[in-house]
């Protein structure tokens, strides 16, 4: 899976592209582990170029969040389509991920006090 990354201040924006399924899950997990190793703990995952997310993809997001939370960071989500938003809600992941309607809002959320 192709994952574009961009650093904006103290925030790293990752943009996975295509299908986020079992085949692609390890690519995302490895990318996030590399971010953690490089001290990048404030992540935004831009899902606007993801065409399908299945349970393996959702599981990879949970695994990524655990890696980053362990380091005191967080992952914020942006750009999910309606079907993916419904999937987040179906398996209750909207309780552990903050989801934003714009990438700038997701980035700025890391500036909030206590974040």
């Amino acid at each position, binding site marked *: 899976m192709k994952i574009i990354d961009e650093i904006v201040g103290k925030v790293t924006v990752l943009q996975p592209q295509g299908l986020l399924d079992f085949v692609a899950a390890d690519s995302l997990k490895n990318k996030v582990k590399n971010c953690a190793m490089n001290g990048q703990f404030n992540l935004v995952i831009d899902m606007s170029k993801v065409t399908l997310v299945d349970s393996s993809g959702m599981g990879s997001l949970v695994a990524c969040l655990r890696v980053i939370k362990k380091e005191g960071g967080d992952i914020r989500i942006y750009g999910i389509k309606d*079907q993916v938003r419904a999937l987040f809600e179906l398996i*209750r992941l909207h309780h552990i991920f903050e989801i934003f309607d714009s990438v700038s809002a997701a980035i700025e959320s890391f500036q909030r006090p206590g974040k």
Partner: protein
Amino acid sequence: MNTVLVDLTIQFLRNMEYLHLVTGTSRVFCETIMEPDIPKNFVDDVELAVSEACTNAIRHTVDADASAMVIVHFRMYETELVVEISDQGSGFEFAEVVEPAFDQHPEGGYGLYIIKSVMDEVHYTRGEEMNTLTMKKYLK
């Protein structure tokens, strides 16, 4: 009588390399047949269910021979789509699969729950030679 409009079968070695072939075929198949009044998200829901079911069929047949096949059978009727996914693994007890522990946010175990949520009917038969998951989605 419920007439079959299109009937398509894909058979492949139980290898993740072929997952995208099947999910892509599912999308094209549904989009080709699509009628103006079918439910919103029909194509996305079927693609998701096919991805989940094929991932399970490939991953959970490790006890099967390396030459074991997965067979995906799409049938579009006037009123519904039927997708059957068959594998040669040892199978599982469909009735004993429990819901995920949502409050613990596990990293896996959501597949069957998602399939049941996005499809209208889901059945499973465990056979001596093949196990088959049958999924139906109504067109109207």
